[in-house]
């Protein structure tokens, strides 16, 4: 009897061991780290940004076992949706892909997970390959890392090489050049469909992504002494830099471009202007890096190999902060000028980046980090930045240095040189304008600035009233948040200390 029991026990042990061994053989490598973990990631209604996250989620699940659910909301709602979810303790969102400039509002209350050590230990991420601007400005706050960069954002001017060649004009160096080209090209048939097209297409829709455009134009008039001079506020007393001749000059350009634009330009968002430009209906546009890759999409683009890009144009006259007047550029007031033109590339938005809810479960946080790391690793990223629909633009050093991926994506060498050159010039500029990163920056830009500019375009107010409205609105927000505190944030954000 005892023998039978021992024999049965031995058999049972053998079966169990055999089963385990068989499982190990049958499912090699499937001891998945995040098996059964589900991550809810929020971002804006795509297709841009959401598309690569959704497309790569199944591949990530196959690798690590974690299921990624991508939740999308309209861009204008993203900031508050995240804020209310995290501030009220609902915590239904485990991670999000959003604007790095909003980090200041999320880090302070402790909503974002500090991932400094995780990034440092993550060799696959190749963090040193991420360009220093994105590594330090987009990913970090107060010296700690909270975000993983997935996208690199600068606004640039795109032009039709064939149209400019036909008109005998050079790419714009100044905003006056931009307006002149727009005027010359407006009304011509630019895509051969027999109908008149437009000189300039700039997204100017209210409550959308248009409010960065005016800063892109104003930057070259306002900031000439380098990044730490700042283009939004006086770094001594936080006086808004919007009620002065430089901003007025920018508003003049902004209004003038409307004359050479589609009739419904004030109701066009970036998606609309991109479609107009890539279907050959515009000679010029002002946008992020997306145009470069959308223009090589054979299914939608009618301007393949007809697109050039330049760093944002500038001005030969800039604001003298002491006198408050516009003065001609010289080596003292415009130390970074080239050919007498002061240019100040605007790092608008900064690039979509992934952050993790500090209140999520540990395993979920780890899985979310692994997902963002996976998305950002060169194997994925180097491909995604060459595809227009992703909304991801180059941000890794290797993406600028190696043309192979761009050529494989269908870009000609000339187009790739022009596109990557404009981004590199912007990245390397010592006079780069950093986007506003102080508490409630979204209210400063997306409400006060956006509304005043929209009212100006609608004819509800004139230039002087628009400038006064922005200055008053920004000053009011400064007072609400504490002017000294906001000044400290602003100075720290642009390296003025």
């Amino acid at each position: 009897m005892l023998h039978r029991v021992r024999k049965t026990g031995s058999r049972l042990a053998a079966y169990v061991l055999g089963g385990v061994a068989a499982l190990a053989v049958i499912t090699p490598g499937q001891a998945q780290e995040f098996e059964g973990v589900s991550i809810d990631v929020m971002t804006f209604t795509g297709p841009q940004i959401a598309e690569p996250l959704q497309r790569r989620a199944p591949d990530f699940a196959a690798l690590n076992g974690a299921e990624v659910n991508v939740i999308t909301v309209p861009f204008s709602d993203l900031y508050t949706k995240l804020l209310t979810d995290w501030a009220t303790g609902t915590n239904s969102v485990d991670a999000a892909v959003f604007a790095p400039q909003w980090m200041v509002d999320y880090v302070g209350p402790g909503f974002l997970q500090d991932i400094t050590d995780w990034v440092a230990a993550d060799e696959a991420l190749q963090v040193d390959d991420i360009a220093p601007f994105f590594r330090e400005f987009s990913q970090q706050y107060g010296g700690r890392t909270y975000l993983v960069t997935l996208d690199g954002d600068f606004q640039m001017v795109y032009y039709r090489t064939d149209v400019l060649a036909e008109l005998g004009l050079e790419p714009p160096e100044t905003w006056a050049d931009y307006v002149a080209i727009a005027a010359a090209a407006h009304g011509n048939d630019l895509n051969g469909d027999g109908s008149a097209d437009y000189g300039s297409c700039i997204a100017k829709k209210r409550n959308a992504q248009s409010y960065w455009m005016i800063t892109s134009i104003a930057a070259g008039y306002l900031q000439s002494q380098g990044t730490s001079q700042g283009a939004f506020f006086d770094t001594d007393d936080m006086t808004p830099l919007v009620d002065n001749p430089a901003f007025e000059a920018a508003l003049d350009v902004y209004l003038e471009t409307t004359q050479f634009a589609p009739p419904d330009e004030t109701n066009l968002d970036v998606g609309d202007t991109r479609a107009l430009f890539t279907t050959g209906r515009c000679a010029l546009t002002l946008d992020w890096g997306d145009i470069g890759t959308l223009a090589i999409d054979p299914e939608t683009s009618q301007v393949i190999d007809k697109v050039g890009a330049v760093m944002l144009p500038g001005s030969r006259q800039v604001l003298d902060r002491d006198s408050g007047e516009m003065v001609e550029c010289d080596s003292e007031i415009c130390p970074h000028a080239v050919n007498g033109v002061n240019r100040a590339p605007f790092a608008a938005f900064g690039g979509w980046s992934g952050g993790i809810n500090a209140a999520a479960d540990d395993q979920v946080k780890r899985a979310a980090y692994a997902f963002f790391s996976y998305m950002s690793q060169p194997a994925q990223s180097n491909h995604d930045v060459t595809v227009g629909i992703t909304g991801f633009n180059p941000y890794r050093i290797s993406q600028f240095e190696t043309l192979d991926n761009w050529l494989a994506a269908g870009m000609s060498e000339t187009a790739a040189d022009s596109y990557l050159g404009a981004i590199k010039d912007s990245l390397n500029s010592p006079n780069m304008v950093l986007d506003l990163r102080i508490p409630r920056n979204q209210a400063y830009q997306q409400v006060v600035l956006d509304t005043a500019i929209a009212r100006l375009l609608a004819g509800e107010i004139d230039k002087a009233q628009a400038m006064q409205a922005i200055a008053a609105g920004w000053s009011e927000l400064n007072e609400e948040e504490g002017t000294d505190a906001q000044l400290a944030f602003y100075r720290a954000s642009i390296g003025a200390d």
Partner: protein
Amino acid sequence: MRQHQSFAEWIDRAAGQIMIWPAVLILLAFSIFPLLVSAYLTVTRFRLAPGGFELRYVGWLNFKKLLFGSQQYHLLGTFSALTATDWLIFALAAGTAAWLFVGAVRSGTVGTVGLIGRLIAAAVLLALLLLALAVTGDGAFPGTLVVTVFYVLAGVSVQFLLGLGLALLCAQRILGRSVFRVVFFIPLTVTPVGIAYLFRMLADVGKGPLTPLLAAFGLGEVSWAADPWSARLVVLIGDTWQWTPFLFLILLAAVENQPRDQVEAARLDGAGDWQVFRDVTWPAIAPVAATVVLIRLIEAFKIIDLPNILTNGGPGIATESLTLHAFIAWRTQDLGGSAAVGYTLLAVAVVCCVSFFHFVVRRARAHERP
């Protein structure tokens, strides 16, 4: 046994209350409680704080900002000096209100509460009229309050007339009237956001289906979205397309339920279509018509989807409604300002709807009684 009986009796007596309390508690939790919290929000400022948020008491600052401060242009609008015509219109309206009020006092049938209610209604409606006159002159622009009132008055009026017209047509014995009823009903089943996107595509001047037609009439370069009144008109058209079926359905039921014998008797007496409508149909459907307009009024004050999707409130703030105004304030952490806009909307909507109920709906129903 005695105790058991008394408990059973108590249950019997209290059954009504016991049954109704769950509903009351749910109503309190989901309706009254948020109303009280949002009332508190109107006197606070929201700030992020470590681990969550804090609400700082600021008194009437949010209302002051809206009525007299930096957001006055947004809520009330940009004013211009009133012309002589404006003053004349206002004086006529004020005189009419005073005449009606004196009449109510003299009649002796209106109590103190009724008189106070009339005074509040007259004050609010006259203030709205004055505001509308002040923001529609040269160089002036209406704020979200007047734009919302415009959507409500113009929208509900047009929708009522169209709904009544369609109801009268569909009540006729015509071929395929069932098909028409279903077709007219369809827009009501579509979500407002869907309708907004539909109209956005229809009204797209670059690639919309009407573009060739507009180009043929030389309007290819005209953008409805760039002009405040054409943009508001497009919002109004979308709203009308969505809500006319609601009025149509209710009015159709009312028209079909009118006493047939009275209509036939009128016809035998030689009455024409207009006379039948004026003397038989209208008195019969007036109570239903007044009620359905009241329901529509309450709903119309809350318009948000169409201006949000069609124009994002633009050009400028030309198409922004009060609800959209509150929503935009909310999404930038200005919870106090958002709640203040919401309470402004509540006050105006309550005065308008209660006045309409008192002066129109009740009188129509009184007429209905034998």
